């Protein structure tokens, strides 16, 4: 039997988290090169569905946002946009060393260096690039975290909204996405 840890959750949240953990929809957004290891993870070789996870096309029905690798500022605007469209509860997993500290692109003028300044990251996967085994392992870890109520980045994002917004503005200028036809 799992030992139910209540933390600061109500009983309903404990029950809700238990069921959420077993049915996770992962948002289908290839933000960087780590996405190349997603097809093997999703398909028959490693088979993500054994964990009850599946890809989901729209942000509004997804639970997990995977940041697969480096983020250019142009992508980060869309990522923030997508993240704010997702419904609570939502979790963020950062892939690879680029999301941790910039990785090999530490001095690039186009990519950010540290993801958790802009979005609340629940879990990081180290490596460049993380192997499918590491991804599967981290998904298992994420499920445990959800069950225990430790994955509460989305609450943190709400509570510290000003801090996150200020960081986003400092790096991006603005998060609004304009017409891209340039016409």
């Amino acid at each position, binding site marked *: 039997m799992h030992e139910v840890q209540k933390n600061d959750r109500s009983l309903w949240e404990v029950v809700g988290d238990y069921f959420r953990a077993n049915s996770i929809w992962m948002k289908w957004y290839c933000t*960087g090169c780590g996405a190349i290891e997603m097809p093997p993870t999703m398909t028959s070789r490693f088979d993500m569905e054994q964990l009850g996870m599946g890809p989901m096309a729209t942000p509004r029905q997804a639970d997990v946002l995977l940041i697969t690798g480096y983020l*250019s500022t142009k992508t980060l605007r869309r990522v923030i946009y997508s993240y704010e469209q997702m419904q609570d509860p939502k979790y963020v997993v950062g892939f690879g060393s680029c999301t941790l500290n910039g990785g090999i692109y530490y001095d*690039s003028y186009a990519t950010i260096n540290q993801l958790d300044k802009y979005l609340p990251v629940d879990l990081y996967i180290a490596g460049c690039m993380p192997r499918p085994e590491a991804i599967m392992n981290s998904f298992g870890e994420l499920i445990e975290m959800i069950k225990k109520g430790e994955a509460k980045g989305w609450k943190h994002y709400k509570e510290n909204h000003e801090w996150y917004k200020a960081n986003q503005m400092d790096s991006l200028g603005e998060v609004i996405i304009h017409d891209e036809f340039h016409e």
Partner: protein
Amino acid sequence: MKEVKLFLGPQHPGMHGNYSVHMYVDGDMIKKARPTPGFLHRGFEKLMERRLWMGNLALIPRICVVEPDINEMVYAMGIEALAGVEVPERAHWIRMMILELGRLAIHMMAIGGIGGPTGMYTATYWGIAQRDLILDLFEKITGARIYHMYIVPGGVRKDLPEGILEDVTKVLDQLEKNLPEYEELILRHPIIHARIKDNIMLPESVVWELGVTGIGMRSATGTENDLRKVKPYARYDQVEFDVPTATYSDALTRMQLKYQEMHQSIRIIRQVMEKMPKEGPVRTNFSAGSALRFTVPEGMVYTAVESSRGEYGYFIVSDGKEQPYRIAVRGASYPQGLLGIEKYLTGYRIDDASIWMDTMGVCSPEIDR
């Protein structure tokens, strides 16, 4: 009817990679399309000027994520041409084997990729699973699944591990056994035919206008315009292979050419394993002093190889220092990914846009860099 502005990507399951096509649609007819690259822009060309020649080895495979070996090959070829280094004979053959294995992997990925936009996910599952066996070979040879950093200036990083040729033969045998099944299931499937036959046309005039190379060019013009034949690098002049061509370029033809190229790649790898010198050095050490801080003589050179999408090249400028002065990357999918989408996607339907991306082979990281 009113025109609607529609965003296909960057977050869209039909979109390959982080790329976006924005369009005005009337019903589901595309009236105007604009490609939006830059989501994967990392400033490689600037970063490469800041790294040592050796340090760039870690950077270059990341320019094209799905097919990294061609980057290492053009980079190594460029430095070897500038420095006037002869590569050991065995290294040439090992390089060819790696490049052709890479070509097999990306064609498997493309055959898997066509499952997404056409709604036939069996193709995706089969293609990706088959590709994984090739990645396992890469792991045995180079130690990594995706980014190998194996082809280095002066040869290859290490000799082949023992017994790898048997493993390669085993994978090739199995692939060859499966290929007719893939053809039956994927290329002759009524669903796929209904979706991609006579769709996404590429006339010969458009090829010359845009500068499309590779399968796009060969499927439209019927010429054997393959850099491996026209301008052989490594030891491609010593192996026998055919270049599949066609004179009618729709999406189905291009998929069929990919399929036929896989047969040729298997044929090349088998010949490589036969003709390769059984032993010998695999790397020339051409640097005086430290191997990590070598310098390259002054000059500029353009080197190109045949990738799965066409001519892939680096333009390398050296000023005789420890770092490159400038490296410009010619992404093979630049013409069809940008100008092609802008000019020739109009008139197709919304769901055909991702078939364009897949069968033309648009690789967004190499466009963005």
